[in-house]
C-alpha cells in the first residue's frame, strides 16, 4: 500500500491524475492558443470537443494523429481552430468534411498538410524526447515543398542519399476518449498503441472514458500491457457516449446516419449552427 495508491489530496499535490466531473471540466484546462492533438476515429474525443466549443476556446493549433473526420470538422466549424496540422480530414465514405473544406478555401484556417507516417513518426520522436525523426518518402511532393519546417538532409550514412527530417511534435495537450480508466489514472487503450504514443508525446493528456472502474488496471494482466499510465494523464472524466457519433468498440458502433446527416447539414454555416444547437450546445443546459 505504498506510494501508488495516493489519497486524492496527495494526488493533487503531486500533479497526478485528477478526477473531474465532466468533459467541460477537462476543456476548462485548455487555454486559447494551445497545441491540441487528437487521434482518428474510432474513439474520437467528441465530448471534449463539444465542451471546447461550448467554452469558446480560440486559436487552437490542432494536430490530427494522423487524420480526422467529424470531430476535427466540428472544432473547425465551431471556431476553435486557427491552424490544423493533418494528413487528411474527411468524413470517409460519407464524403468531404464540409467545415474543414470551407475554412481552408476561405483562408480562415491555416493548414500544415502532412502524410500519416510523418505525423506518427514526429509524435514518436516527441515520445522519445528526441528533436527530430527521419522519414523516407515525401521528396518531390508539394506536401514537402509547403512544409518549410521539414528539412531535407543528406543521409550521413550514405553519400548522395537525401532524406527528410521531421521536427518532433510535443503537443501541449492530447485529448483522448477511451473505454475505461481506473482510479489510479490508468487508461486502457487496447490495441490502439498510437494513443499511448500520443499521450507520451503530449505535455498533458486529458481523457474521457465510457466508464471508470474500481479495480487497479495494472493488476489485470489482460489490460496491464495496454494502458496509458497515470503518469501521463492530467485529468480524467467519465463521459458516456463520449465518442458519439464515432464508434467506441465494445460500447457502440459508428452512427453512420448521424454523420451522413451532419455531412449534409454542415454544408452551410447555418446548417452547422443548427447542428451545434441540436447536438453540442445543450450539454451545458443539461448540467
Amino acid at each position, binding site marked *: 500500500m505504498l506510494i501508488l495508491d495516493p489519497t486524492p489530496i496527495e494526488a493533487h499535490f503531486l500533479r497526478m491524475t485528477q478526477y473531474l466531473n465532466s468533459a467541460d471540466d477537462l476543456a476548462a484546462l485548455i487555454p486559447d492558443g494551445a497545441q491540441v492533438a487528437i*487521434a*482518428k476515429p*474510432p474513439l474520437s474525443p467528441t465530448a471534449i470537443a463539444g465542451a471546447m466549443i461550448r467554452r469558446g476556446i480560440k486559436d487552437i493549433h490542432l494536430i490530427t*494523429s*494522423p*487524420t480526422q473526420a467529424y470531430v476535427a470538422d466540428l472544432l473547425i466549424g465551431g471556431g476553435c481552430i486557427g491552424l490544423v496540422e*493533418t*494528413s*487528411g*480530414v*474527411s468524413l*470517409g*465514405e460519407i464524403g*468531404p*468534411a464540409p467545415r*474543414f*473544406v470551407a475554412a*481552408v*478555401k*476561405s*483562408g480562415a484556417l*491555416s*493548414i500544415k*498538410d*502532412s*502524410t*500519416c*507516417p*510523418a505525423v*506518427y513518426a514526429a509524435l*514518436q520522436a516527441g515520445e522519445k524526447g528526441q528533436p527530430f525523426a527521419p*522519414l*523516407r*518518402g*515525401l*521528396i*518531390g*511532393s*508539394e*506536401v*514537402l515543398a*509547403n512544409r518549410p519546417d521539414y528539412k531535407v538532409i543528406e543521409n550521413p550514412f550514405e553519400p*548522395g*542519399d*537525401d*532524406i527528410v527530417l521531421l521536427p518532433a511534435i510535443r503537443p501541449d495537450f492530447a485529448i483522448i476518449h477511451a473505454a475505461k480508466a481506473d482510479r489510479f489514472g490508468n487508461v486502457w487503450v487496447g*490495441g*490502439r*498503441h*498510437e494513443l499511448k*504514443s500520443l499521450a507520451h508525446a503530449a505535455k498533458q493528456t486529458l481523457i474521457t472514458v465510457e466508464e471508470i472502474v474500481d479495480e487497479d488496471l495494472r493488476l489485470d494482466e489482460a489490460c496491464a500491457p495496454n494502458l496509458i499510465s497515470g503518469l501521463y494523464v492530467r485529468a480524467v472524466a467519465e463521459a458516456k457516449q463520449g465518442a458519439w457519433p464515432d464508434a467506441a*468498440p465494445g460500447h457502440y458502433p459508428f452512427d*453512420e446516419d448521424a454523420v451522413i446527416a451532419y455531412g449534409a447539414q454542415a454544408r452551410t454555416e447555418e446548417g452547422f449552427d443548427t447542428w451545434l444547437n441540436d447536438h453540442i450546445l445543450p450539454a451545458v443546459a443539461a448540467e
Partner: protein
Amino acid sequence: MTEVKLEERLITCIASYLDDCPHIAVGVISPIPGSAAMLAAERQGGKVSIIGSDHPKYRCDGGVELFDQAGQGRINAFFLSGGQIDGQANINLHGVGDYPEMKVRWSGAFGSGYLYFLVPKVILFRLEHSRRVFPEKVDFISSPGVSEPGVHRPGGPHALVTNLCAFSFDKAKGRFRLDSLHKGTTLEEVQDNTGFAFDMPEHVPQTPEPTDADLTLIQSDIADAIAGPYPKFARQVFGKAA
C-alpha cells in the same frame, strides 16, 4: 449465368496485377481494391491488411504498424487514388487551384506521401474516367509518380485501373501504357476521356472477363469477408449483410 457486374470485372482486373504479392495492404474506403486483394490472396495464398479494420484477420497492430511494414519492405502491394492523376502518375489528393486556399479542397495526402515511395506495386484506382480526373498535369503533386535518380524509392505506381480500362506504368519511361479495355469500352472513349498521352500496343485487348471460378469466389467467400470491413459495399453490390 447472370451478367457480370462492373465491380466483379474490376475486382478480377485489379487482381491480375497482384501476382506474387504475399502481403497486400488496403485503405479502409476501398472495397473494390479490397475485394481484389482478397481474390489475389485467395488464389496465391497470402495476407491482406486493411487500414482501420477492426476485423481480427485484417486489422493492423495499431495505426503505425502498416507504415512500418512498408518501410521494412514487408508490403508488396497497396492501392491509391487521386482527385487528379496525371500522365506521369503524379497524384493529387489536395485540391484544384492554388495551394493552400484552393478552389476545391480535398481531404489531403493520407499515407500516400510515404506508401507511394515504399510499396513496390501501387495500383491506382479511380471509378471516374474523365479528363477532369486524368489531366495532363495535376494541380498539386500530393505524391509524385516518378523520382529523381538517387531518391530512395523501392516503390511506386504499377497500374491504373478505371471504370473504362487498365493501364500499366512504365517507371523507366514515366508513362502509362494501355493494357486492356473493359468489355463495352472503345479505344476512342478512353482517348476522349484521358487528358494525358499514353502508350499502347498495336491491338488493345479486352480486359479478361472473370472466370466462373473467380465469380464463385467473389460471390461467396469474398462477399462474406468484405461484409466485415465494407458493409455498405457488400450490401449494395452483393446484397450481403454484415
